[in-house]
C-alpha cells in the first residue's frame, strides 16, 4: 500500500511540476517581444551564459577531437582505411558529440549557474521586490536569460565541432601521419551541409531551448532556502542530462533514420 501511495504522490507531484513548467514557458515566450525591444539585457546575459563558457568548450572540444583522432586511427588502420579518419572525426562531431557534449557541458557550467542565480534572487526576495516595483521579473530577468541560452548553445556547439575537427587533424596528420589531402577531401565528400551539419545545428538549438528552460524553471520553482536552491541546482544538471540524451535519441531517429 505504502509503495502505491508513494507512486501516486510522485505521479501527482510530477504532473503538477510539468504543468507549472509549461505555464512558466508560456510566460517566458510571452515576454519575448518586449525583451527583443531591450536587447541590451540579452547582451549582458550572452556574456555570462555564452562567453564564460567558451573556454571550457574550446578545451573540451580540442581534447574530444584529439581522442577521436587517436581512437579512430587505431580502428581504421586495421582495415587500411585510415584516410577515412577525417570523415569519421567530422561526422561523429558534427552529428553527435558536438551538440550533445557541448549541451552537457553547458548544463553543468551555465545551467547550474542560472538556477543558482534565480534561486538566490527568489530566496532573497529580489524577484518579489521587483514585482512590487512594478517590474515584471519574467520579462526583466527570466526571458533575457532564456534568449541568451537559446542563442549561445548552437554557437558553442559549432565552436566545439570546429575545434574538435582541428584536434582530430592535429593528431591524424601531425602525429600519426595520415595523408593531409585525403583527410580533408574525404571529409568534404562524405559530410553533407544539410543532412549532417544543419541537423547538428537543429539538435543544439533544441538542446539550448530545453536546457535553459529547465535551468530557469528549477531556479524559479526552487524552495527559497539555501538547501532548496542547492537541490534545484543538482536537479538542473540531472534533468538536463536526461533530457539531452533522450531527446538526442529521438532527434537522431527522426533525422538520420530514413535515407
Amino acid at each position, binding site marked *: 500500500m505504502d509503495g502505491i501511495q508513494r507512486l501516486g504522490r510522485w505521479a501527482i507531484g510530477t504532473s503538477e511540476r510539468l504543468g507549472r513548467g509549461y505555464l512558466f514557458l508560456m510566460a517566458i515566450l510571452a515576454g519575448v517581444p518586449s525583451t527583443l525591444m531591450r536587447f541590451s539585457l540579452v547582451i549582458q546575459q550572452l556574456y555570462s551564459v555564452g562567453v564564460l563558457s567558451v573556454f571550457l568548450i574550446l578545451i573540451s572540444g580540442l581534447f574530444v577531437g584529439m581522442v577521436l583522432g587517436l581512437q579512430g586511427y587505431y580502428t581504421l588502420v586495421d582495415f587500411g582505411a585510415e584516410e577515412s579518419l577525417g570523415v569519421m572525426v567530422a561526422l561523429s562531431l558534427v552529428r553527435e558529440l558536438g551538440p550533445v557534449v557541448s549541451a552537457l557541458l553547458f548544463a553543468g557550467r551555465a545551467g547550474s549557474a542560472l538556477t543558482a542565480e534565480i534561486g538566490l534572487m527568489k530566496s532573497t526576495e529580489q524577484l*518579489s521586490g521587483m514585482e512590487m516595483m*512594478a517590474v515584471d521579473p519574467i520579462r526583466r530577468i527570466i526571458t533575457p536569460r532564456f534568449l541568451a541560452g537559446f542563442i549561445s548553445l548552437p554557437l558553442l556547439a559549432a565552436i566545439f565541432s570546429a575545434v574538435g575537427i582541428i584536434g582530430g587533424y592535429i593528431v591524424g596528420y601531425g602525429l600519426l601521419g595520415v595523408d593531409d589531402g585525403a583527410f580533408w577531401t574525404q571529409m568534404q565528400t562524405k559530410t553533407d551541409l544539410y543532412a549532417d551539419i544543419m541537423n547538428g545545428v537543429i539538435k543544439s538549438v533544441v538542446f539550448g531551448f530545453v536546457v535553459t528552460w529547465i535551468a530557469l524553471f528549477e531556479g524559479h520553482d526552487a524552495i527559497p532556502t539555501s538547501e532548496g536552491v542547492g537541490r534545484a541546482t543538482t536537479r538542473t544538471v540531472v534533468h538536463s542530462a536526461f533530457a539531452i540524451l533522450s531527446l538526442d535519441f529521438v532527434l537522431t531517429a527522426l533525422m538520420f533514420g530514413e535515407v
Partner: protein
Amino acid sequence: MPLIEIRDLHFYRGDRAIFKGVDLDIYRGKVTAIMGPSGTGKTTLLKLIGGQLLPDQGSIKIDGQDVHQLKHAQLYELRKRMGMLFQSGALLTDISVFDNVAFPLREHTDLPESMIRDLVLMKLQAVGLRNAKDLMPAELSGGMARRVALARAVSLDPMMIMYDEPFTGQDPISMGTLVNLIKRINQSMGLTSIVVSHDLEETMAIADDIYLLSDGRVIERGTPETLQNSSSEWVKQFMEGLPDGPVSFHYPGVGFEDDLLRSKAAK
C-alpha cells in the same frame, strides 16, 4: 474614504486558515500599524495588498480599485504607486547602491541620466547614505540595506508605502534611525504608510492607528492610547509581553500529566 479597504478577507495556505474574515481600513496620510504574534500572516497581508497573492474570499480595494480584479497591466500600473520595504531589503545584489535606487526610475521613466542622478542623490541624502552610493549591497549592514531599500521604495514618489517588519534584528541606533525616517518620510511626502511589526515600543511611537491580529481575525483596533488602556486580556498580554495568558505558553494538546500517565500505561 479610506485609501485601502479590506473586506471579509479569507486566505488559506493549504488547509491552514491564515485569515478568517479580516476587515481593515487604512486612511490616507496616516501610519497604520498591523501587529500580532509571529505566524499571524502579517507579511501575507502585505503580499495580498500588493496583489502578489490571491485571496480565497473577500476583497481588497485600493483607491477604489479591487486589486484582484485588475488585469496584469493595470496591476503593474497600480504598483508603480505603491512602495514596499522588504524585511531583507530585497536589494538587487549584482548592482551598486546607486543603481538600485535608480532601478525603478530607469525602468519606468525616460528621464535623462543627469536627472536620474540628481533624483537618486536626493533620495539617498534623505536616508543619509549619499556617500555610500558606490557600495555593493553585500557591503552594507542590515540597517543600511533597509535604508537604501527605503530610498528605492520612494524613488517614484508613491502614494503609499508598506513596511514589512522594519525593526526586526536592528541595533538600537539603527532602530532609532529607521523610526525617525519612517515618521519623517510619511510627513514630508504625505504618504500613507502601513507598518507590519511586532516591535511594540517603536511601532507605538509612529503609528496613528493600530490593528491587532491574531488567529486570522482582527482582535482590536485603535490609537496607541486606547490600546494601552484596553481591558481585553489578550491585548494586555500582547502589550505587556506576558508569557502566559489567553495565548498559551504551551502548544495546545493533551496535558502534561496525561501525557506522562499515558506513556506509563503503554509500558
